[in-house]
């Protein structure tokens, strides 16, 4: 803000004090925000900083700065931690489970949104109820165990094929698609499958994007289920692999930091492109009352 002295515009006393107050508010705001931002930037900075330092250097002074940054930790962690395998596993689990979930959900959400089946309201209620039921953890384990799917890829993927919140988002969005479209499609003789894929799917793309991204991030970040269900190291997703790596190389923080950054990168890239859908999904229905 600049105040010009040679053209002193006549101002009311009230508005001048209002300007001063809004400036104070701004200064106070920046002070608080910057203070809090420190706790978000500094840990991230230290993570990057540590990842760039040789281990000996780090052990001498853990809080020191990387004087001669090098990328050796990254290549070392990449090999030691069996990263290519874990990344591939994570990618397989995330992609296949998300694809199957979205595909099956479309054909559940559509008839529910339209009320085309007797009892479709009941099905929707069951999805909502699930949010409040006891955790499924123990019987789920017994189920997978007795199906003989313990410590297998299909068994692990099976656990991620449902997402009640995702389903509710899809149903709500589909309700905004006019029914008249169904009518003309039916009259034109389009097949049901074709209609859902070619007409409904493009129209609900924002909701599909939201649900896809949230579901995929959830799988990518999941730690507990791989801990419970996967015992063979060659089946580990990256999260589990990283925790095991931390257990083995406990004090090699430069290596761990490098590994954490490699796990983080894909999520951050995804976030940069799909931020809108992620935040849209988290706030969906939250503010309408």
């Amino acid at each position, binding site marked *: 803000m600049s105040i010009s002295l040679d053209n002193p515009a006549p101002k009311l006393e009230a508005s001048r004090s209002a300007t001063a107050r809004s400036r104070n508010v*701004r200064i106070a*705001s920046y002070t608080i*925000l910057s203070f*809090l931002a420190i706790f*978000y*930037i500094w*840990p991230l900075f230290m*993570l990057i900083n*540590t990842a760039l330092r040789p281990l000996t250097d780090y052990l001498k002074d*853990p809080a020191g700065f990387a004087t001669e940054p090098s990328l050796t930790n990254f290549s070392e962690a990449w090999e030691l931690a069996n990263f290519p395998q874990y990344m591939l596993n994570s990618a397989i689990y995330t992609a296949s489970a998300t694809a199957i979930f979205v595909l*099956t959900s479309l*054909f*559940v959400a559509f*008839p529910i949104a339209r*009320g*085309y089946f007797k009892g479709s309201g009941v099905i929707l209620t*069951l*999805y909502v*109820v699930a949010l*409040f*039921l*006891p*955790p*499924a*953890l*123990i*019987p789920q*384990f*017994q189920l997978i*165990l007795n199906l003989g799917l*313990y410590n297998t890829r299909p068994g692990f993927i*099976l656990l991620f*094929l*449902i997402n*009640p919140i995702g389903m509710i988002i899809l149903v709500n969005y589909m309700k905004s698609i006019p029914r008249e479209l*169904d*009518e003309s*499609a*039916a*009259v034109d*003789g389009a*097949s*049901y499958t074709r209609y859902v894929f070619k007409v409904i799917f493009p129209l609900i793309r924002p909701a599909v994007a939201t649900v896809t991204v949230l579901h995929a*991030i959830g799988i990518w*970040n*999941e*730690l507990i289920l791989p*801990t419970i269900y996967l015992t063979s190291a060659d089946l580990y997703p990256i*999260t589990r692999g*990283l*925790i095991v790596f931390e257990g083995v190389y406990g004090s090699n*923080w430069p290596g761990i930091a490098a590994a954490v950054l490699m*796990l*983080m990168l894909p*999520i*951050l890239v995804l976030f940069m492109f799909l931020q809108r859908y992620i*935040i849209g999904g*988290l*706030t969906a229905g939250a*503010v309408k009352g």
Partner: protein
Amino acid sequence: MSIMQKNYLFGSAGKWRRLTPLMLLIPGVFLYFLVSLGPSLATTVYAFTDASGLRGAPVNWIGFDNFKEFLFEGLSSRDNIDATVRTLRFSVIVTFVQFTLGLILALLLNQKLRGRTFFRTLFFIPVILGVVIQGLMWKLFLQPRGGPMATIFEWFGLESEFLGGLPGQAFIWVIVVQIWANVGVTMVIFLAGMQTISEDLYEAAKIDGADGWQLFKSITWPQLTPAINTNFLLNIIGSLQAWQLFLVLLGYKPGTQVLGYLVFAEGFGQTEVPAFRQGFAAAASIVLFLLVLVIGFAANRYVNWREERYMA
């Protein structure tokens, strides 16, 4: 019913027969019952058995024994009750701080400030990173000897073992990381709520000479009711069920367990003497569920009461 009238799929004019949609509906619903709803309900049954994690091992009905053990049997029940109390304490502190901090952040970042997109993104990012990255990042930051936080402590002549210290101290650091990791969601929901408030309301109030606090009290707060309610409920329920950061930050550390962790540890052999006590774990998860149910129900009643008061 108007719905039935507009049933183009099965009406006489419609060319879609009933079969295809039904066949396509079944896989999704079947998966849902198999993997989610069925097991959820079965938890109630398992809680009354001595089920173990071994394939083919016999499962016996033992009535209320698991619950009796959880509540009344000597040393272990004291640990369980401690864990329950700890869960409540964790939830109260996390809910209060995360709610308040989220609201403050949203108020600050709802102003026309340069760089607000940067700040919003910054505070939100931990949410999408997941517990492994959140936890390891802070484990590094909280290294006791010469680590970044230890260095700050030194400036003030303080010393701490952080996560390796006494259970009570370690517990506080988990609370800090929990709030750090999730306050972004609270903030974003508040921001979304604030964006639905009409600018005209503020303009009118300003003409009447209202100051900042009055604007907040008589416009922002009541208008924000839906977002306040959502955040309040989400924070309470979320923090009662949260435990994964305990796993990453502390591992199985006696004196720090919350109920969620107890279920996992008992059920999947993560205790000091590993045993897959799945029946007992199911009972513990029922206790947690009842806690969430009772508190969630009370909170919901309170929220509805507030809504009637403010929105009427």
